[in-house]
């Protein structure tokens, strides 16, 4: 069984009187250890898809399994638990808490996982070391550069040892050189065995991943190899 399985997933929204069909029957498998990109223009439904995959939302119809667990009709609390245990998020705008230090930001998911104080600090330090920011541990996010902030966000995504990491336009707010560094970090993590899904509208980024899922008007229009293979990048 795949890590994530979507079968005929439909998602409808109501915005005022208007009903929007964001996803119109998506069937998709993501395997353990994969490195994939979801690409599509704005309004294509890729964000909705990521929210579903990231257990931030549930489908209107169809079924969805994450790590063998049926989440199609899961309660909000159950979803929160799944996000906490199995999923890590990296956002375009980093979404770090500005009043907390780097260490505290990385500790945050473990607080909700009920990890004890000393273990929390220990694991947060390890995660920060993995993104090579050990020297900025006591700084607040506002004292860091964009690239460093995104590294902190990645450390936070990693710290609960999730099954899968979702990155929503992770390079969107970074200059191209820093963006390349972040993508390099993702590639390294992928090589080390993490499952990573990047959501982007940038074909060049999608081209660096082994698998490219194209979405348009709520439907998958292409699912297969990227333009370049992982070994080429």
């Amino acid at each position, binding site marked *: 069984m795949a890590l994530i399985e979507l079968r005929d997933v439909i998602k409808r929204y109501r915005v005022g009187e208007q009903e929007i069909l964001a996803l119109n029957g998506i069937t998709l498998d993501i395997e353990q250890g994969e490195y994939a990109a979801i690409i599509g223009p704005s309004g294509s439904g890729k964000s909705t898809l990521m*929210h579903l995959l*990231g257990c*931030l*939302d549930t489908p209107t119809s169809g079924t969805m399994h994450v790590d063998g667990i049926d989440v199609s009709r899961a309660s*909000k*609390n159950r979803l*929160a*638990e799944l*996000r*906490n*245990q199995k999923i890590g*998020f990296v*956002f375009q705008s980093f*979404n*770090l*808490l500005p*009043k907390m230090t780097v260490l505290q930001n990385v500790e*945050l*998911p473990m*607080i*909700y*996982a009920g990890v004890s104080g000393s273990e929390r600090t220990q694991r947060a330090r390890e995660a920060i070391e993995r993104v090579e920011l050990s020297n900025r541990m006591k700084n607040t996010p506002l004292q860091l550069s964009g690239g460093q902030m995104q590294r902190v966000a990645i450390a*936070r995504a990693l710290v*609960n040892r999730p099954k899968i990491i979702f990155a929503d336009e992770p390079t969107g707010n970074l200059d191209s050189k820093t963006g390349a560094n972040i993508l390099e970090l993702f590639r390294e993590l992928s090589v080390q065995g993490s499952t990573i899904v990047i959501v982007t509208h940038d074909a060049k980024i999608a081209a660096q991943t082994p698998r490219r899922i194209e979405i348009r008007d709520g439907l998958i229009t292409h699912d297969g190899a990227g333009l370049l293979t992982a070994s080429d990048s």
Partner: protein
Amino acid sequence: MNLWLGFLVGLKEIWAHKFRSFLTMLGVILGVASLLSMFSLTAGIAKGMREYMGQIGGIERVSVIGQDVPPEQEGYFEISPGRTVADAEAIVRSAPLVSHVTPVSQLPSGTLQRGNQAFRAEVNGCWPDYVPINKHTIAAGRGLSELDLELGLRVCVVGRLVVQRLFPERPNGNPIGEMIKINDRPFKIVGVFDFYEREADKRKRELAQKNATPRQKANGPPGSRSKPPGSVMRSGGFSSFRGGSMFDRKNLTVVIPLTTMFYEFKSANVVGKEDQGPQYKLDQLTFQIADTERFDETLDQVRSVIQTTHRGISDFDFDTRLEWADAIEQSVRNTRMSGGIIAGISLLVGGIGITNIMLASITERIREIGVRRAVGAKGRDIFVQIVVESTVIGIIGGLLGLVASLGIMQILIAISPESNAPVVELGNVLISFGFAVIIGVISGIYPALSASRLDPIEALRYG
């Protein structure tokens, strides 16, 4: 998320917005301060009243008073001798629940004289038990004795103000053995009562004595150092007391043996030109209840004793302070309640202030809430975080309010009558503080609910 961590996060959030948090707390601070001041004020009033109550004998002092006989006994009520010494003797013999008893025969306006000093005062002929029943204490010399009573000696025990008026040259002296005249009969002073005053006055006087200049000390009469009532030393000091009349009256007490009273002053009663014969009826008959827990039981016992001595005629009743004490307690409770409600309302307004600021702070932090939800916070976790934050505001506001009330208390002490000076009681401190904490919790509930119901996706997109 555990509470301690939430508490720290809350503190941090408050520290990050110091001025805003302080303004928010101001409502709670003022609320707690006025609540505690209110409680302390009523506690002070209650204490003043209880002190007064104790000075006049407490609730354990009961008087036997005369009463109209019931209609069915009207035809033959003369068979009752009325209140006599026999009643008191019967109570001593047959009412073990009574600890002290004294018959009192009064000279309502006896002339007290020494040399060219004279004034009129109430003179009480009584038994030695008069002293404990009326909460008198002997400062110097002795009280009345059984021997005085048996021999009908012309001795008297007087209050401090009597000494002051008859011995103006040494108001603080103890003129034991000196002779004075009561209605022209010579009496020897065998004892002097304590100087009675409010506790607050006493403290103030003792403080003044500690700081007294050597000159004042030199002025003090010799032999008066054991208990020198300093306020009497101030010329006219006693009359300047606010509300001191009750104490004045007690300080003017003159007691002589009951038998002496009968021999000297009651053996003849001339109305017009005719002697009505000796007057053996008592003016007062008072006793003290040994155990106030058995109040009604004691009254029943005494009632049956006096019924016997009065030959079955119900021409007496009891005058107790019980109802009066209840009325005092009731009015104190009412004042406390209404004051508490007013102060409580101001605390409530403080609580609304907290709710308001928490709602604003949540709007500022929608994105933060989204992030927390994304990394796995449940609605419940967000709820707890917000409630803990508002509770922290309540706790800090409450503590500051307690500090502020200390200041308010100083003002109240300055403006309120001294006998009712506010008293801070631990229970009231805890209630006021507890109320602030509860307000903190409650005022966080609505903001916390709306924060915990935010949709994570919407929250992440916000701003």
